[in-house]
C-alpha cells in the first residue's frame, strides 16, 4: 500500500519515475485497489497479486503499455468473477507489451481474459476456468487475444469455455505453446489469422481439439500459414455445449483438428487419439457470404508425421453412423467434405470424402467415397514463427 501511495503521488507530479512494484492483497476493496493499480501503473511497472482469492464484481482492465500483471501461481492467486455484474470479460487488456502470468481467472460472465489490439502480449502460466465444467451458460473464450501482432500464449490451462479455450482472432505472428485445454467446445482456435504455431499442447475432452478457421465479412480475412505440430489431441468427444448461433456450435463432437477455409495449414507430428468423429477434418464454409476477399475452401493442407490412434467410431453428423458401419465400424482418420484444394498428404492413412462438389451444398447430397491418392499440385512450405526475442526473455 505504501508503494501504491508513492506511485500515485509520483504520478500526480507527472515526473518520470523508475519501474515500481505495486503489491495487491485480497480482501476488502480488492476491486478498487487492483483496478486503481492497473490504472496508475507506469510502463515497466509490475502489479503483483499476492496469493489468495479476489472477489470481483466488475471487469478489470489494463491500458498501460509494458505492464506485468503477476500472481503467485495459477492455483494461488485467483481472480474470482462469480459475482460479476458488468463488463463483457473478466480482464481486458488494450495496451502493448503486456505480460500476464501466474494467476487464475474463474467464472467470468463473458470472456475470461481478452486483449484487443494489444501487440507483443505474453500470456504465461495462467488458469482460466469455469469451475462447473462444460455448460452453455459459461463465457465464450478463455484466453482471447484479437486484432494484434506478436502473441505468445504458453503453459496455461483453460477449462469450460462455451466457445474456445484459447482463441486467437484476426491477428498475426502467433505462438500457442504447451497449454492444456480441457472440456471446452473448441480447445484452441486460430481464426482469421496468419502465421501461427500451435505446438506441444494437450487438448483433451473438448468437443473439437484444435480449429483453424477463416470467416467472411470481417476486417481481416484470408487466414493461413498455420502450423499445428507436436500436440496431443486426445479424446475430444464432449457433446457440443456451445449456445446455438455460434459457428462452433456446428463442430461435431469427436473432432481432433478441424480446418475450415484456410490456406497453408500444416498438421505435423501430432498424436491424434480416440477422437470419435475424425482426427483431421477439412471443410468449406457453407453459409452464404458476400466478400470478394474470401476463399471458403481449405487450400494447401499438409498432413505429415502424425500418429493416428483409434477413432472415427461414432461420427457425430447425420448419416455418420451408416458411413462408419459401411467402412468397417469406423471412419478413416482424415475426413473431407470433398471441397479442399491441393492436399499434401504424406501420412499413409486413408481419406474419406463426402463427395460434395459445390460450396454450400447440403450434406444430404453427400456421396461418401474413399479418396484415391492424388499428387500434390504445389509443395507447401512453412517458415517458423519468430517472436521478438524480448518477449521470450520476459518469461525466462
Amino acid at each position, binding site marked *: 500500500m505504501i508503494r501504491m501511495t508513492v506511485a500515485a503521488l509520483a504520478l500526480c507530479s507527472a515526473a518520470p519515475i523508475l519501474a515500481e512494484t505495486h503489491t495487491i492483497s485480497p480482501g476488502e476493496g480488492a476491486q478498487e485497489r487492483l483496478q486503481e493499480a492497473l490504472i496508475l501503473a507506469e510502463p515497466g511497472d509490475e502489479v503483483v497479486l499476492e496469493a489468495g482469492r479476489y472477489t470481483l464484481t466488475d471487469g478489470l482492465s489494463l491500458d498501460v503499455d509494458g505492464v506485468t500483471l503477476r500472481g503467485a501461481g495459477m492455483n494461488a492467486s485467483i481472480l474470482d468473477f462469480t459475482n460479476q455484474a458488468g463488463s463483457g470479460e473478466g480482464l481486458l487488456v488494450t495496451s502493448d507489451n503486456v505480460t500476464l502470468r501466474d494467476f487464475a481467472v474463474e467464472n467470468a460472465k463473458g470472456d475470461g481474459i481478452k486483449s484487443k489490439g494489444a501487440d507483443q502480449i505474453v500470456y504465461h502460466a495462467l488458469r482460466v476456468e469455469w469451475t462447473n465444467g462444460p455448460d452453455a451458460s459459461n463465457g465464450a473464450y478463455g484466453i482471447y487475444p484479437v486484432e494484434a501482432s506478436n502473441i505468445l500464449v504458453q503453459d496455461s490451462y483453460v477449462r469450460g469455455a462455451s466457445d474456445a479455450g484459447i482463441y486467437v482472432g484476426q491477428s498475426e505472428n502467433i505462438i500457442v505453446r504447451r497449454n492444456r485445454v480441457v472440456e471446452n467446445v473448441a480447445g484452441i482456435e486460430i481464426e482469421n489469422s496468419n502465421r501461427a504455431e500451435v505446438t506441444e499442447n494437450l487438448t483433451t475432452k473438448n468437443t473439437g481439439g484444435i480449429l483453424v478457421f477463416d470467416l467472411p465479412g470481417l*476486417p481481416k480475412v484470408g487466414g493461413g500459414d498455420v502450423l499445428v505440430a507436436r500436440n496431443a489431441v486426445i479424446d475430444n468427444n464432449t457433446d457440443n455445449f456451445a449456445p446455438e448461433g455460434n459457428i462452433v456450435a456446428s463442430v461435431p463432437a469427436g473432432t481432433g483438428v478441424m480446418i475450415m477455409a484456410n490456406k497453408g495449414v500444416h498438421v505435423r507430428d501430432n498424436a491424434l487419439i480416440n477422437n470419435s468423429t475424425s482426427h483431421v477434418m477439412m471443410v468449406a464454409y457453407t453459409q452464404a457470404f458476400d466478400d470478394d476477399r474470401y476463399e471458403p475452401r481449405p487450400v494447401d493442407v499438409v498432413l505429415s508425421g502424425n500418429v493416428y490412434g483409434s477413432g472415427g467410431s461414432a461420427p457425430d453428423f447425420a448419416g455418420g453412423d451408416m458411413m462408419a458401419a459401411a467402412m468397417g465400424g469406423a471412419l478413416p482418420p482424415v475426413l473431407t467434405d470433398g471441397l479442399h484444394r491441393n492436399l499434401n498428404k504424406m501420412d499413409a492413412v486413408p481419406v474419406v470424402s463426402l463427395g460434395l462438389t459445390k460450396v454450400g451444398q447440403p450434406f444430404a447430397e453427400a456421396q461418401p467415397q474413399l479418396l484415391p491418392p492424388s499428387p500434390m499440385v504445389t509443395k507447401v512450405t512453412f517458415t517458423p514463427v519468430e517472436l521478438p526475442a524480448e518477449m521470450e526473455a520476459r518469461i525466462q
Partner: protein
Amino acid sequence: MKKALLIFSTAAAALAGSITVNATVIDEPAVNDEAVMEGMPRALSQYGFFLDAADQQPNYHVTSYELNTPLYSDGADKLRFVYLPEGTSLSGEDEGLLDFPVGSAIIKTFAFGDGDDRKLIETRVLLHRADGWIALPYRWNEDQTDAKLALAGARIPMTRPDGEEISYRIPNKNQCKTCHSKDGEVIPIGPKARNLDHGWLTMMANDGQLQSVPTGADALPVWTRADDFETDALARAYLDVNCAHCHQPGGGASNSGLDLRWEQDDPSQIGIRKPPVAAGRGAGGHAVSIAPGDPDASILVYRMSSTEAGIAMPELGRSTNDPDGIAVVRKWIEEMPAS
C-alpha cells in the same frame, strides 16, 4: 468577454443612494485551466466548471448543450456542458465530431430525480490536453457539495424514480476509454454536428464559440419528439449513438465486423443476415444480428434486452433495459421486408 465581476455588497441601498459607494471588484471565478491541462484533480470543484455545483450552474465560458438522440444510461438525466477557454472556438465542416481546441473540456453530470429531489450521482469529464484527450469519472458525495475522483469506478445500489432497484455503475477510467476510443486514441463521442440542435449551433457561432455551423448538422431525429420521425431514422440514430462508438472500424468492437454508424449503408455491415463471430452465449441461439421481419430471431434485440454481463449490449453503461430503444429497434426490424 468580462474580465472581472462587479459585486455590490449592499446593492439595493447603494443604487437607491449614492452610486459610488460600496462597490467591490473581485476576480472572476474562472475555470482553472491548469486543472484542465494536467494532473488528475481529486475533486471536481478544482476545475471550477460550476458557479454553483449542486445546482449545476455553469461558470463563464461553460455552455450547456443537449443531444438530439442521447445515449441511454439507465434512464439517468444527463446535464452536458462544454468548456472553451477564452479566445478559442469549436470548428467542424460536416456531420461529424466537432473539433475541440486544446484546453477545452466536455462535462457530463448524471442525475436521477426531479426538482428538489434531484440527486447528482457522477460527473464525467473529458479534458483536451496537449497530448490528447483524457477521461476521468467523479462521484458525488452525499451532501451534494462536491464530487471526488473515482479512478476505479464504483457500483451504487439505487432505486430509480420509477421504483426499479438497480446497481448503477460508475465506469473506471479505462472503461471511459473503452467507449471513447477510436484507433486507440481517446475521443469525444456525443458532440457530432449531426446530433446537435441547429439553434444551439447557431447560437454558438453567433457567440464566436463556433467558427461556422457545419453542413450536415442537426440531421439525427430528436428523441423527445419521436412521433415526428420515421422508424428507420429513429432506429439508425439510436444504434449510431448507443452502439457505434464500439461497433465501427477502429472502435472497441471492430473485430465483430459490425458497423452501426449512421453513415454505414451496407446491409451486411449493419448486421442484416450477418452471422455472429465471437458473440458466445450473447447470440442467444440466433443465427444473425438482424433477421429482417423477425426481431425475436435477431441477436441485436436479444442483447439489447438483457442486463446480464456477457450478454447485455452495450457491455458498459447500463444495468437496466431501455424500453423505448428496444421498441424502436424491434419495430424497425419488423418492418424490414423478409425476402
